[in-house]
């Protein structure tokens, strides 16, 4: 039986008080709750503070390039549909450098989870604005304030027809764990954006800032309804909803491409006779 302990305890390179610790806990809780052994799980990350997460959990891991977690995750998942694949990285990684992959992954709908540690800042590179940094917020690199409007990943994902869109706050570990479980169980691309206070560089969006604003969506919210989902996705001010904002079923890439039950490509062998007959199409 797997338990939270199965996933080990590791020394991290994170700052004391960082929200990443809670997300790490939530991840262990979620995986344990799903009964997944570490060898069944693949965490793929990019580069950033959040992207170090796969090192702090027993699992298969591919800590790749900044911004490129999603392509790697999809490649691995399509090669081994049996793996539980989670692309876990920062807001800068997934929405900044990796923005184009984010758009494409939503449309492609491969059955993976995309977990975003959203601290609304670039942590590892010491405090520049990220796509989700609020416009006007002053940072080391933006002493006059961030010039661009903040990216709203929830609204964008909902507008693009993403089938599972959720938001959490690292301050509520059980809730994040629950969202992660739902995301993994959802058949298709599932986005989980988790607010994560960066104690070192984001002096605006602090634990208290989130705590004061985040409220949980209750049953009155129907994530199957586009209008309701969009309304909640856009709510970002004194009150910010957390929970499953959008959820509905649609065919996954695996289903569309007939690869749902495909055996891992690692077991693939060429059918020589068949290939020989294909070759004759050139005759």
């Amino acid at each position: 039986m797997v338990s939270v302990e199965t996933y080990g305890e590791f020394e991290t390179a994170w700052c004391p008080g960082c929200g990443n610790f809670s997300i790490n806990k939530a991840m262990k809780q979620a995986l344990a709750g799903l009964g997944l052994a570490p060898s069944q799980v693949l965490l793929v990350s990019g580069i950033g503070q959040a992207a170090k997460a796969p090192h702090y959990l027993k699992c298969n891991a591919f800590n790749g390039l900044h911004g490129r977690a999603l392509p790697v995750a999809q490649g691995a998942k399509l090669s081994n549909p049996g793996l539980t694949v989670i692309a876990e990285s920062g807001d800068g990684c997934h929405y900044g450098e990796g923005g184009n992959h984010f758009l494409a992954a939503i449309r492609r709908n491969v059955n993976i989870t995309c977990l975003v540690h959203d601290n609304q800042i670039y942590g590892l590179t010491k405090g520049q604005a990220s796509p989700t940094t609020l416009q006007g917020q002053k940072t080391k690199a933006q002493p006059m304030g961030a010039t661009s409007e903040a990216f709203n990943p929830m609204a964008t994902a909902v507008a693009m027809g993403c089938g599972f869109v959720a938001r959490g706050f690292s301050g509520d570990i059980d809730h994040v764990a629950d969202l992660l479980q739902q995301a993994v169980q959802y058949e298709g691309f599932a986005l989980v954006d988790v607010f994560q206070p960066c104690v070192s560089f984001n002096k605006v969006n602090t634990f208290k800032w989130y705590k004061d604003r985040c409220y949980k969506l209750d049953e009155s919210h129907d994530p199957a309804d586009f209008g309701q989902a969009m309304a909640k996705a856009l709510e970002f001010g004194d009150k910010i909803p957390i929970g499953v904002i959008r959820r509905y079923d649609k065919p996954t890439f695996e289903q569309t491409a007939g690869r749902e039950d495909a055996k891992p490509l690692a077991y693939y062998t060429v059918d020589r006779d068949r290939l020989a007959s294909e070759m004759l199409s050139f005759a």
Partner: protein
Amino acid sequence: MPETSVNILVGGEAGQGLVTIGEFMAKALVRSGYEIHVTQDYMSRVRGGHNTFAIRTGPDPIWAPVEDVDILVALDQETIDLHKSQLTGQGVVIADEAFDVGDLPALSVPFKELAPKPIFRNVAALGVLASTICHDIEDLEQLLTKTFGKKGDEVVEQNLEVLRAAYNWRKEQDFVVECMPPSLVDVGPEGSGRLMMQGNQAIALGALAAGCNFCPFYPMTPSTSIPLALSALGRDLGVVVEQVEDEISAMNMALGASFAGAKAMVATSGGGFALMCEGVSLAGMTETPIVIALIQRPGPATGLPTRTEQADLNLALYAGHGEFPRAILTPGTVEECFELAHKAFDLAERSQSPVFILSDQYLADSYRSVAPFDLNAYPQIEGPLLEADPYYVRHALVPNGVSPRVVPGTSKALVVLDSDEHTPDGHITEDLDVRIRMNNKRLKKAKVLARDMFQPVRYEDEDPERLLVCWGTTLGAAREAARLLTSLGERTGVLHFQQVWPLVPEQFMSALEGAREVVFVEGNATGQLAALIRQQTGFVAHKQVLRYDGLPFTARYIATAVEQSE
């Protein structure tokens, strides 16, 4: 250089169906046991412009294009105007009777009469052409029937009628035909059994034979035909070919797949590859096998998207930041495309490194007649291990640097890769002693690659006064040029690199030092292989023949350049 060959040039606007004529004729010739060599020259547009499809054919092997045209099939006036100067003494123009052929020997065809609708014109042209070279009409009838079969009997019948009418029309003309000499191959009722295949198709086939089963791609001329062929040939085999959002994704997705146990490949061209550079470095750092088909076209930037060049050798050699080993294979023929693609997967897996197949538009699009490959002689390449104990570490420090590679998810073992410097277990580290050990480990794998490489091959004169040194797709023209130059007085041989990296000087220094004059022949402006060989051996080329106008080499181009610089 073939004893006898006929060079047929079909020219016209994009959209006029010249490729259809060319492909039918070429296929018919292959089925009848002839050798062919097709050179496609087309513009970066969908309609209009001026494109050509040149079939050089005959009973003997043909290695390169030639300038001289024996039969000019002109679908528009421009084709006549542009190419009439290439017509040989025995040459003939096949053109609509409305076109101005001046005093050229011509078959002025009443296409309006022969083809009831404009859409049938190319079949009519095919009929006239086939008849002009005395090609058996039954062969073409079979081909058309097979090809149009899925469109229904009526379509087939209409096409056959036009074909016959055109074929017979030519016969009735007062026109002396030099028929092609008979082919040297036994042709049974099913044809010669030989295949008509392009370089890129052969790369796809070689990859499939090696076990390639994953190819994410972003379309880019002249590489796109590789994923398309992989998809067409491999769909029923379970091969995953998926168009993705950009080349960065293609490369990273391929690495994710390779990590998870797929045999992955990407195919692209200059600009697309430039975007993959960071990913190449990731492959180097994580020791993830990846095969990269880099099909060159002239740059810089968008350059000439549909033409040929050999200017990205340096890029392939140094792409990606940091230092790590790689191999670069450079096929010279369609057969080598197959063989080297197969080998590329072997090398990638055995060195856990990026391996390049560096080809170019000329060979990519060039149809040749090849014998079917004996697939059993080319086994599926061994993949990674499926089993390991739970204490497995991915980058174990083993003597030759190549650690046992296990796939995640097929055993209890955990497999960890990191783009940061890492300990043998794959976890991030900033221990600088470990850094040195891991960097040495990775670089050591260069030896594994060097031990098992394709030697440069000598062709033509074995003890020449003059040696033409070339790589990749220039092989054929160089061989023909060597024969031409030998016939002009100086014994000339060829040294062909079908692998340009790593280089093992012992394999070729005696050849370089044995000739009085060593001429490097490269499809670029700066002599990239010559510079590399100087860097590695100190040997300085005596002469260079460079071409960078977007067209492939010919024997005449090389011979003229060599003689002029005498």
